[in-house]
């Protein structure tokens, strides 16, 4: 899923404080799982903004709302009128939702309340870790199910580098060495012999390097 983290409150306040009316708009799927951008968090953030407005004696009407997903038209039906009438929207979606709304409501300023941080999982409650960079050409089949693009700080395809120490990455003792994990996993699978195959040069044109990506289902 997509993971995001709320921006510092001051940064959010500076973006929105000059409006007379603001809709704080949650996105209740990915970013709700990490408790940063769901409809509940939209309600809390709206309350904090109202409090700040009151403290600073700023005249701004703040409404909170939200939908299931800000990246598809069909979810907007029930809130169409609310958004149309809004002077500005503070979206708690990831960058995708913010852009979707900015395209959909071309005359309405849409501000991001979150920094979209990564594509990750939830290995334990309250912990979120990066697992994919959407490079467009998955190699998990040969790396034992451990992604070198997102999990190696140098995205090495033939790691580990010389900085791998007791399972940790050279950049931090908190960061696992992806290639230690690859080696452990290949060993567990009885496939350590495949480690010696030199992985070829990566085609990064399928990554963001190749420009914005899209695809179309011809049947629809």
């Amino acid at each position, binding site marked *: 899923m997509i993971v995001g983290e709320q921006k510092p409150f001051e940064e959010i306040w500076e973006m929105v404080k000059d409006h007379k009316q603001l809709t704080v708009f949650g996105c209740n799927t990915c970013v709700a799982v990490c408790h940063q951008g769901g409809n509940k968090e939209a309600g809390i953030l709206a309350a904090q903004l109202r409090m700040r407005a009151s403290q600073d004696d700023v005249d701004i009407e703040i409404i909170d709302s939200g939908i299931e997903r800000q990246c598809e038209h069909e979810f907007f039906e029930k809130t169409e009128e609310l958004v149309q009438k809004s002077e500005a929207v503070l979206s708690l979606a990831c960058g995708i939702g913010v852009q979707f709304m900015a395209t959909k409501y071309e005359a309405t300023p849409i501000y991001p309340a979150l920094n979209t941080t990564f594509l990750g999982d939830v290995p334990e409650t309250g912990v979120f870790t990066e697992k994919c960079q959407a490079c467009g050409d998955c190699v998990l089949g040969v790396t034992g199910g451990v992604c070198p693009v997102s999990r190696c*700080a*140098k*995205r*090495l*395809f*033939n*790691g*580990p*580098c*010389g*900085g*791998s*120490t*007791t*399972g*940790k990455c*050279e*950049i931090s003792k908190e960061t696992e*060495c992806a290639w*230690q994990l690859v*080696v*452990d996993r290949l060993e567990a699978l009885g496939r*350590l012999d495949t*480690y*010696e195959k*030199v992985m*070829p*040069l*990566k085609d*990064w044109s399928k990554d963001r390097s190749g420009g914005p990506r899209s695809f179309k289902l011809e049947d629809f």
Partner: protein
Amino acid sequence: MAATVTGSKLERVLKSGHQAVTSECGPPRSSDPAHIKEKGELIKDHVDSINVTDNQTSVTRLCSLAACIHLKGMGLDPVLQMVVRDRNRIALQSDILGAASFGINNILCLSGDHQSFGDSPQASNVFDLDSMQLVQTVRHMRDEGKFLSGDEIKVPPSMFVGAAANPFGDPFKIRVPRLAKKVASGAEFIQTQCIYNLDKFEKWMEGVRARGLHEEVYILAGITPLRSVGMARYLQKNVPGMDVPDELIERMKGVDKKKQADEGITIAVESIQRLKEVEGVAGFHVMAIEWEEKVPEIVERSGLYPRPQID
């Protein structure tokens, strides 16, 4: 003597059966070339070739290529260190041609320290290729006379191709297989991480010999003299992939502070003397970091002087 394929002096020395001696110079954080020339002057008679580091520890410096050109101009045999951290395949191939156009005949292909260690942790890194893929790239350019794209290079670069190996990185069990991958990628010489744990290095070399890799690649053992017990402790605690045994720290600690530098030199000399006898060690890479003036003494006391004169 085995046939040489490049104009590299390092290649000639190794292929003529001598144990080679290389050293390295870190370029200055300035546009003044005097510094690099002085370093070259200090060590030139005691080494066969001189590595020039490429923004080591991710601290921005005068570029490796320009520093190599200065050394080449002094009649020396530079080894262009090139990291894949800062350049994509277009820039790498371009710099390889540029270096070759100045008669630089050696390249050491590295991944490079992560930028978080250096002066620009906010920088974007590149890592379009990894170090092995850079080795493959240089060999492809040299041997096939082609760019990665397949287009012809009319005058291919004449480069003797090296890579690094760290026998002390984890997991240890893949450190010999990883060397095998570098050899399979086309590495012709290897310069190792600084060796302080000689037992572990010798264990790694056993694995290297068991697979016959020492007959496929020239392995230069990395030696860095310790200047003080503080340096030894720092390397042990703070440098990932560095293995400084406790007994070495005890030995440095047991010496009067003023004599610790001398002790460090003696340890380096003893290490070389021991490793000279290890089958498969083809030479030494003496990295006296910002202490280049000590390289001649280390080389002389290790019995590696005079250097062979080979045309």
